[in-house]
């Protein structure tokens, strides 16, 4: 009861103090709960999104003579099955089509039987391009090879004149690799190349085309409910693989399972780990900082509590009784802050992830408990210490000057040790082709190079301590007395006070620097990621806007003149052909190497071992030069300067051999696929093939959506127009799944980072300035005007805020540079250097300056007041 009365009296008398403590604990609880909930949410999201990337979940291939009905029945019994469809295909000698330009024949081809609703069942398998999306469909490449389109008649070679079908549409097979996979291939056998020629027909047509003439492969394609998968991709993979094995045993070996879902989940492990690392490296420093800020705010009660404790003891309260009374206050602070924090966390999650986001119960409870523990530690621990040691006398208290001695870790050189070790670890881990996450193919366990995380983990405290050391050193300079000072502004005296308080000022500046560094490092990292994502989108689209025809279109060309619309800043033409490098069919891009950079995104990361400028310059200086993929150079034992013969289609559609010389290596290029491709000089390709037809126009503009809309109105038949605005929604990078996680995490960390930066500056100032109350009254007694008294506060505030801002910007930039390097694998393409978000940083600086100015101004007014109570305290 006594504790309750003490608590009630305390709450009535000190509402502002209670509110401040509650808000500080609330900020901490809010950050922790929302970050934890984000982690829980993004893990499950990661699995769902990864699973959604699988075009179909299982491809069940029946062994010869197996009973399809039995296999289908067993498949129906697999838990969470959404549906299954029968898909058959057969390899035939080739396809033939006759048109006005003559008869064309392909090499070996696949004829595939699909149910009529297959497009709806597995929409990621088929992408309609021309004509109907159902019926008899030709793959895009096959259509090009046969010069066929909707309405053309295609004949299956070797079956007879009756084996003909009229083409209803042309489609792309975006997932041809998995569609035509070798089901049951041993692990590590490597992927098989998808067929160049594919004819897709309804089940009824299939029998008339191939029945009795080719070996038919029977498959059942299955899809499952993804929302019931475990949230962890590795666990989801284990479940899917286990079910596949169980099914295989159920059908007693009559079918093999191509587990596309399992493969997609295996691929998501890397994203899951990167998502965890992002939380570890971007989120945790913020939470720690929030805890420190919270502790400092709550600790502001200490002085009053010390006085009250003395009175309580004087009135006979036992040490344990005193601790219970203070503990009741701490519990009230913790519960009030916890409630505020949960409301804040729910709001933060809603802002970050949208209305569907829910607060994780486990994290919410954990965060509230953490808030309570923090409040108890901060409020009770010093009280217990004081009970044991006793308080200083008034005389000792008023004469004591803040310590100027550096803290022990700095005297021992901990900052230099930590930074040196961090630099060493950074150098050791980042030299060569290092990767923080290693995901071995086919093995469900991924490994993380946790040693690499040591670099930023050590750099944080090391740089913070270094900021402390530098601030203290900078403030230790002695100032000369001015010759005149008729205004009585006493600059030398103010500087002497700050010099003597440099330990306190340096501590406050360090806290502020860390708060700002959390925001700065997150902002730089996120901006770098966004920039690279934009480059990725621009690479996929080709430029801000791109107009494209299918490759190797003959008789059709794009005139650069049509792209000269209002808003188009530069237009570049590009040929897109298909060329055989040995047996591999690769995309070949014909460019003007001297001018391509005017419209295409170019980065040095595209040309390993050289700069993009030097490589393109070398290509321009080598008329028959070709840039090849690293993989091609490796597979064909080629080197720069070597002769390489490619087979290209000439103007008549016939393949001719064209000699090139290797001019360099290229890993990425505008519109190019992620695997192997070739870049060469357009003029040489035109001369060698007799066709200067242009298949791509790259347009640079500051308004992609508007220019794309204008170009769509002018695009010839068959041409498509893409732009980076709409392209961004469809392009997924290698670590695209982690991007969603980063976006949420960045919003949370930046939001709370801003709050913490302002809170830290305000708090550091309040803590420092509140200690000046007595001195300010003394100055007033000596005749100092309010302006002269405020001058002391402004000098100290200026020193603390400037040092904190400079330190924060530098520490944040260094940490961001380390994070970008350590998490290099998350970027696609890899950045050359971190991107600096100038606008955001300017806003941060202004917000901190404004918060500090308001705090100092208000503190000056409040602390500088000379009233009866303060005079009597002297």
């Amino acid at each position, binding site marked *: 009861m006594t504790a309750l009365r003490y608590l009630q009296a305390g709450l009535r008398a000190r509402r502002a103090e209670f509110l401040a403590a509650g808000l500080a604990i609330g900020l901490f609880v809010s950050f922790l709960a929302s970050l934890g909930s984000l982690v829980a949410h993004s893990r499950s999201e990661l699995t769902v999104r990864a699973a959604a990337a699988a075009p179909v979940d299982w491809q069940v291939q029946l062994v010869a003579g197996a009973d399809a009905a039995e296999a289908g029945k067993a498949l129906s019994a697999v838990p969470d099955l959404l549906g299954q469809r029968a898909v058959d295909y057969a390899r035939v000698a080739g396809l033939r089509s006759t048109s006005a330009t003559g008869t064309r024949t392909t090499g070996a081809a696949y004829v595939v039987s699909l149910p009529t609703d297959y497009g709806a069942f597995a929409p990621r398998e088929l992408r309609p391009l021309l004509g109907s999306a159902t019926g008899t469909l030709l793959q895009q490449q096959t259509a090009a090879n046969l010069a066929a389109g909707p309405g053309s008649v295609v004949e299956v070679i070797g079956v007879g004149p009756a084996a003909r079908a009229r083409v209803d549409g042309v489609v792309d097979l975006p997932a041809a690799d998995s569609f035509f996979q070798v089901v049951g291939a041993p692990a590590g056998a490597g992927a098989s190349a998808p067929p160049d020629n594919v004819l897709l027909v309804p089940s009824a047509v299939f029998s008339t085309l191939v029945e009795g003439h080719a070996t038919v492969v029977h498959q059942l394609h299955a899809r499952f409910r993804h929302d019931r998968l475990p949230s962890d991709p590795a666990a989801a993979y284990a479940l899917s693989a286990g079910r596949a094995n169980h099914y295989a045993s159920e059908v007693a070996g009559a079918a093999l399972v191509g587990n596309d879902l399992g493969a997609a989940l295996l691929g998501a492990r890397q994203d899951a780990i990167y998502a965890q690392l992002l939380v570890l490296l971007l989120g945790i420093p913020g939470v720690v900082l929030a805890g420190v800020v919270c502790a400092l705010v709550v600790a502001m009660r200490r002085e009053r509590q010390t006085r009250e404790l003395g009175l309580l003891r004087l009135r006979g309260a036992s040490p344990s009784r005193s601790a219970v009374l203070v503990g009741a206050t701490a519990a009230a602070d913790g519960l009030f802050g916890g409630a505020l924090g949960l409301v804040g966390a729910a709001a933060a999650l809603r802002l970050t992830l949208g209305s569907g986001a829910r607060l994780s119960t486990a994290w919410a409870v954990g965060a509230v408990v953490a808030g309570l523990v923090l409040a108890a530690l901060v409020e009770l621990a010093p009280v217990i210490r004081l009970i044991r040691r006793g308080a200083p006398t008034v005389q000792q208290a008023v004469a004591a*000057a803040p310590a100027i001695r550096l803290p022990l870790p700095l005297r021992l050189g901990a900052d230099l040790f930590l930074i040196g070790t961090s630099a060493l670890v950074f150098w050791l881990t980042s030299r060569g082709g290092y990767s923080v996450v290693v995901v071995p193919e086919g093995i469900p366990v991924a490994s993380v190079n946790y040693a690499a995380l040591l670099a930023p983990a050590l750099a944080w405290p090391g740089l913070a301590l270094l900021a402390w050391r530098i601030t203290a050193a900078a403030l230790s300079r002695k100032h000369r007395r*001015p010759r005149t000072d008729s205004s009585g502004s006493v600059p030398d*005296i103010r500087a002497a006070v700050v010099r*003597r308080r440099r330990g306190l000022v340096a501590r406050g500046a360090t806290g502020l620097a860390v708060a700002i560094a959390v925001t700065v490092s997150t902002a730089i990292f996120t901006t770098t990621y966004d920039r690279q994502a934009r480059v990725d989108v621009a690479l996929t689209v080709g430029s801000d806007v791109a107009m494209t025809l299918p490759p190797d279109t003959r008789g059709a060309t794009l005139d650069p003149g049509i792209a000269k619309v209002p808003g188009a800043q530069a237009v570049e033409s590009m040929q897109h052909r298909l060329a055989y490098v040995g047996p591999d069919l690769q995309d070949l891009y014909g460019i003007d190497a001297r001018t391509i950079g005017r419209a295409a995104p170019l980065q040095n990361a595209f040309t390993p071992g050289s700069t993009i400028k030097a490589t393109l310059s070398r290509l321009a200086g080598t008329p028959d030069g070709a840039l090849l993929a690293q993989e091609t150079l490796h597979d064909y034992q080629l080197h720069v300067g070597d002769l390489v013969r490619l087979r290209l289609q000439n103007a008549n559609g016939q393949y001719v051999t064209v000699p090139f010389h290797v001019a360099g290596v290229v890993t990425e290029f505008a519109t190019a696929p992620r695997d192997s491709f070739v870049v060469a000089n357009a003029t040489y390709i035109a001369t060698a093939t007799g066709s200067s037809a242009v298949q791509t126009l790259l347009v640079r503009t500051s308004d992609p959506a508007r220019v794309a809309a204008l170009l769509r109105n002018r695009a010839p038949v068959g041409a498509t127009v893409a732009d980076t605005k709409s392209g961004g929604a469809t392009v997924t990078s290698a670590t695209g799944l982690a991007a969603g996680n980063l976006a949420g995490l960045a919003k949370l960390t930046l939001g709370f980072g801003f709050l913490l930066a302002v809170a830290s500056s305000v708090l550091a100032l309040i803590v420092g300035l509140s200690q000046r109350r007595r001195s300010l009254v003394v100055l007033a*007694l000596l005749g100092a005007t309010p302006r002269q008294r405020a001058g002391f506060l402004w000098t100290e505030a200026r020193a603390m805020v400037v040092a904190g801002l400079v330190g924060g910007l530098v520490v944040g930039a260094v940490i961001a540079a380390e994070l970008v390097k350590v998490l290099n694998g998350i970027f696609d393409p890899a950045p050359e250097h971190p991107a600096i978000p100038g606008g955001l940083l300017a806003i941060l600086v202004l917000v901190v300056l404004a918060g500090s100015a308001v705090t100092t101004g208000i503190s000056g007014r409040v602390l500088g007041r000379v009233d*009866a109570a303060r005079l009597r305290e002297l």
Partner: protein
Amino acid sequence: MILSNAMDVVLQYGERRILDGVDLSVETGEQYAVTGRSGSGKTTLLLVMAGLLPPTAGRLTLGITSREIAYVPQVPSLVPELSALDNATLGLRFRGVDPSAAVDQARDALEELGLGGATDALPAELSGGMQQRVAIARAVVLAPRLLLADEPTGALDRAAGERVLTMMRELAARSETALLIATHDVEVAAMFPRHLALSDGRIAA
């Protein structure tokens, strides 16, 4: 000349009357000792006479400006981050006195109070008595016409207290500064020509 004149002054904090109808007039060169037990209203009376606390009722008339009044609190209350010399120069510097002149005057005052060897020391490095002497030096260097000191010997042993009081009285007499001190020590009060005893906010004698 009357420097500070309190007539029927009442000072009240909430329900509690700290001063209850006090009359006191201090003239140039006068030296007063206000005595009384703890809580009798001595400090409050000094603050009122200095013009720092406005009375709740009654009237206070100041014959001089606030710049001509100096107040020495009970606890020395030096700026803890500044040396003894800088503390002593503060008042002068706020008044726009040339920095080097302020230093010379402050150094002289400190030397006169026996602190010539401690000018660079921080308050925490000085004893209670030395701190009190710095506070007095800081006040007298302003050449006030009225100097008020609250328990100036409270933190000192008897010998040191007597020394400090003697110095204060001599300095005041030399510059015709009126001196008003509050003390609970009757022996200290006995050193002053004029006395005023307070009891529960009223003048007892």
